[in-house]
């Protein structure tokens, strides 16, 4: 595997392989000294053109635990602000000797454009509203860890909120359905893409009609600018219809799990403290983030010898 840019490109076998590899990484992370020399001498550059806390930190932690060198490209102090083109930036960093770029950008397709300009591997850490494949891997791994299910067949997942602008939703719809889950999207029509009839999902506009039937409730963040853009009249109205309240938690099946990719908007989609939700996996999602990203880096950059023949 050369790049990780979308779940679609990864495919089912790639996805399964990475989930298995993540088990090895999770084991390493349990050790007293959670560090192995697997990627010694490799260099990973983070190119974040958009704010990120957990994704950037978990990639950097993952790289360090595999003994890779890391480079962080900070947009606010970079030549980009002096008018340097993205192509020149990528070429410059490539010339320094980089094996992989971890890229986040507000624009769709940047990871594909960049891969034409460098020989390094590209890991998509989020491109516009398009893809965020490592988040989907984290979420699949987290569900698998909680349910001990190898396949998601028979599992029903509701993804709730701003599907239209969500790269997490697009990656997760592909990943969950690849693994066999049935997915229902729950959102007001204005927060759905104009046409989802070709997606392998069902659609509901009423969370209360769906909530008691699902095994996984996946809440998305609602950004406050959606109100200014007229997608919802007020955040309060949205939160009344689509937010997770105490009452809705009670309507969940007893073993249903609750997830959120973060960062949470408390008082909007999360009207309840997640620690008050019995089966919330939100902290596991963050914890697994490092193991999953170690697996991705190792898969793309590893030589295959240092982790029991995996390559």
């Amino acid at each position, binding site marked *: 595997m050369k790049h990780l840019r979308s779940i679609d490109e990864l495919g089912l076998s790639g996805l399964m392989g990475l989930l298995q590899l993540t088990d090895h990484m999770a084991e390493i992370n349990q050790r007293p000294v959670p560090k192995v020399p697997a990627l010694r001498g490799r260099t990973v550059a983070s190119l974040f053109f958009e704010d990120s806390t957990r994704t950037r930190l978990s990639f950097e932690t993952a790289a360090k635990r595999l003994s890779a060198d890391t480079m962080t490209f900070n947009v606010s102090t970079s030549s980009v602000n002096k008018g340097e083109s993205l*192509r020149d930036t990528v070429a410059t960093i490539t010339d320094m000797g980089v094996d992989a770029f971890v890229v986040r950008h507000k624009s*769709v*397709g940047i990871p594909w*454009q960049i891969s034409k300009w460098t020989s390094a591997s590209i890991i998509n850490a989020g491109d*516009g*509203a398009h*893809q965020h494949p490592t988040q989907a891997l984290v979420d699949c791994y987290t569900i698998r860890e909680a349910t001990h299910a190898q396949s998601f067949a028979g599992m029903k997942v509701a993804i709730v909120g701003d599907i239209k602008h969500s790269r997490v939703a697009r990656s997760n719809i592909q990943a969950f359905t690849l693994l066999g889950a049935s997915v229902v999207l729950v959102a007001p029509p204005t927060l759905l*893409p*104009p046409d989802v*009839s070709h997606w392998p999902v069902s659609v509901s506009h009423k969370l209360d009609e769906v909530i008691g039937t699902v095994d996984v409730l996946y809440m998305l963040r609602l950004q406050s600018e959606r109100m200014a853009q007229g997608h919802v009249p007020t955040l309060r109205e949205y939160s009344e219809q689509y937010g997770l309240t105490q009452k809705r938690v009670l309507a969940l099946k007893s073993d249903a799990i609750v997830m959120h990719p973060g960062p949470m908007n408390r008082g909007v989609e999360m009207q309840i403290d997640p620690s008050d939700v019995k089966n919330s996996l939100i902290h596991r999602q963050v914890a697994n983030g490092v193991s999953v990203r170690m697996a991705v880096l190792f898969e793309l950059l590893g030589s295959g010898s240092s982790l029991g023949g995996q390559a």
Partner: protein
Amino acid sequence: MSKSLVIKGGTVINRKSQEVSDVKIENDCVIEVGKNLKGDIQLDASGCFVSSGFVDLHAHLREPGKEEAETIETGSRAGALGGYTALVAMPNTDPPQDSVAVVDFVREQGKRAGLVDVVPSGCITLGRQGESLAPMAELAHAGVTFFTDDGNGVQDAALMRRALEYAKGLGVTLAQHCEVAELTKGAVMNECSCCTDLGLPGWPAIAEELMVFRDIELVRITGASMHFLHLSTKRSVELVRAAKRDGLPITAEVTPHHLSLTQELLASYDPVFKVNPPLRSIEDIQALKVGLLDGTIDAIATDHAPHPRRDKEMSLDLAPPGMLGLETALGVVLAEGACEIRDVVALMSWNPAKIARIDNRHGCDVIAGTKANLCVFDPQLTWSVVPERLASKSINTPYIGRTLRGRVRHTIFQGTTTVIDGQAQK
């Protein structure tokens, strides 16, 4: 005494005839069409068609203001290689073509290049801002016959009504870029299943169709004539067809790329495929082709829109829309096989010359006494595009890797050969 030129052995296409003849040219006129003609210079045209030179209603030549992308000279050369003898230069220059000074400059630069007739369009509104009318009468007096705010549609319906009313007394054509701007904010590609997958903001067909409908109704109440630029949707074709059935003075064009390329190409994430209006669905392409055949669409126009490499290397949302078209138009249209050769000549020469109101010197039958603005093309020759070899200053062609059919062999502009055997002569 100037030298005479004879085009030997081609099939001359005129409105009411089509036969193998030689064409003899002296000074800037055709002086004889017949058999076994002799002249000082002979150009072989065997296996080729000889027609009036092509007329492009829609070329962005970028000068003044964006000479990094194209100049009037490089754009003219690209046009000549594409078989064109006249290009209507779009007004979205910097400064825009809303004053006699700028319009005169564009025309003079065209004359200086001397490769095609550069016909400057004028803005409908000052600065293409859509707020107040440009000095249309003054511009018309300076020879402008074609007005548009292309790049922008005139959003204000009352202002557009005034423009149509005002234009009626001037004997000019108004042309609309149909796009209701509120519906296309941030749009990158057609609103379709593909844009859903890519998470890109969609440019819905209705943003074009609403303005087509509005302007048809404005034409109905004003009686002024109107040309629709680069129509791209099935419903737009239907609206125009119905308007023509009602006898309204409306004409319409379609671009080669909207006849040949679909929205799915955006999944390559390559901004070379970003264009405005966006590439649409295969159903839209089919409807546009039907429109070509039944006379709903009057012209094929390139919307030639050069952009420097660095601009097209930006992200999909930031890269400017537009693609090259002048050198590939004929090859794309013939490769699509949407219509007969005679229809192609009508769509690329006869009709657009009339719409641009330059049919006194372009789009004329190839007969003794008419201006020698001619195109000689081989309808069968297949070729592929090498961007670096294009005459345009930019390389943003979407046709890399595609086989085109039909290529211009010679172009004669005002009696002078601008292209011989596919090579520009200056």
